[in-house]
């Protein structure tokens, strides 16, 4: 009995270690800067948000269906100024998005806000019904009205909201 218990406990601890290790190596997305609640999100955390999809032409010239959540909703969750608050000095806030490889792009905050635009910028996690592949996912920005896809940044790791200081 004792032996069984010991073996079981060992197994549980090992499982815990494996899960911890796995959790550490999973890619996460950090939202920080001018926010009231900094967030670190895993892919599974996005289930709490409404799923949205866009059918758009990618760099390969072919149409793909991207699924994910509205970038705006994530920023709202982090307490970024939005809607009626987007006035005065808040109009010079920017959103700097960084990828795993160091690539960076920038949006002005009003470009993402539904009071300013009908375009829904997506934080996509799926393409044509499949999870985004290595090198593209797990998170990618899709901005349908951008003709050039340079700001459709892949492998998003961090989103920083800041004030233009000039």
């Amino acid at each position, binding site marked *: 009995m004792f032996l069984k218990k010991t073996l079981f406990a060992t197994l549980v601890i090992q499982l815990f270690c494996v899960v911890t290790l796995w959790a*550490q*190596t*999973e*890619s996460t997305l950090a939202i920080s800067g001018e926010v009231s609640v900094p967030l670190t999100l895993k892919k599974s955390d996005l289930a709490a948000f409404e799923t949205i999809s866009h059918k758009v032409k990618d760099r390969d010239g072919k149409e793909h269906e991207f699924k994910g959540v509205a970038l705006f909703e994530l920023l709202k969750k982090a307490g970024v100024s939005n809607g009626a608050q987007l006035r005065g000095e808040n109009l010079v806030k920017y959103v700097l998005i960084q990828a*795993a*490889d*160091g*690539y960076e792009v920038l949006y002005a905050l009003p470009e993402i806000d539904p009071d300013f635009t009908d375009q829904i910028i997506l934080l996509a996690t799926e393409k044509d019904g499949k999870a985004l592949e*290595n*090198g*593209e996912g797990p998170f990618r920005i899709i901005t349908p009205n951008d003709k050039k896809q340079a700001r459709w940044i*892949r*492998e998003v790791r961090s989103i920083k909201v800041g004030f233009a200081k000039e």
Partner: protein
Amino acid sequence: MQQLRAWIRKQLPTDGLGFFVSVLMLSICSFALFIAAVNRNVPEPYPFKFPANFGNRFIIPADNPTTKEGVHLGRMLFYETKLSANNKMSCGTCHEQKLAFSDGRPVSLGVDNSFTKRNSMALVNLLWVRNFFWDGRSPSLETQAVFPLTDPHEMGQSLEVSVLKLSKTKNYPRLFEKAFGIPKISPQLIQNALAQFERTLISADSNYDRYLAGTYTPTERELRGMNLFMNPPSPERSLRGANCGHCHGGPKTFKELFHNNGIDSTFSDPGRKNFTGDSADNGRFRVPTLRNIALTAPYMHDGRFRTLEQVLDHYSDHVQESETLSTFLKGVSNEKNGSHLSLTGEEKVSIISFLHMLTDTTFINNPEFSNPHLFSKK
């Protein structure tokens, strides 16, 4: 006041003009003395010089502004062998100016006669770098310096010992006071001074810079190489290219990126993953600057390629697949449905001749970057 005037009149010529001139001269002298006393310990800002197309996207920490005095001290420290455990090595040992501040070895030899893990990086245009080392683990030049100074396989000496050794010298307390206003040497001030000097290592006078400024006409081969370097291949439109500029482009030929460039399919050195803990970063390393690349052989994080020819052969024909291989190296080919870039021999030679355009002889001969201790011994 009356008494003072009477006393002064006694001492000085009695006419009104003489009194006025004397008072004026006294005032000027005392004011000059006052200014001299106030200004004595204020270091002068260092004027950075670089072409406008390099841009101003860099941050100098507010608590370590670059000054002429700080840069001079940093240069003295960069070449200071007292900063190593055996008093024989300095930063300059593995970062030689004539090799654009690299050392010509695959990996470097430390004070304990063992080898470092990775290839000594060229120190060029660091002002624009935001994450240092092959894995980007260090967020500033100030924090970066601690690693090579204290690593037992590099200079192998704690900063506290370095502070003690420098404090005992005649020269250094005075130089620290000039640079930072206080004669007390500290680990942080050693780091600050080194960072200040390193920020000044700007290379911006290569033939490529001169070409961009309109004062150098490239040879036909250089021009062919430049076009191949910058353009992606497009066999459908019969356009040949090597797409190097995708990661190495821009006037600085540097972008702050980390990629797995396919030199291995399994990774004995996990590179950036060691720092981020993210398995998607396995085998990713810094995309280094190509400035002075012809001087900084051997190449890659472990110095495995001796020549630029081997590097070009790799990208052209030997990129290896793996889970984290850069997407920019996948399926990029000069042949329809080709799996490799497949450059011709002549194309590789042309690209290498363009890479030689990035050599900056002004930079490697700039006396402001040379060993000041050698100079003073002469």
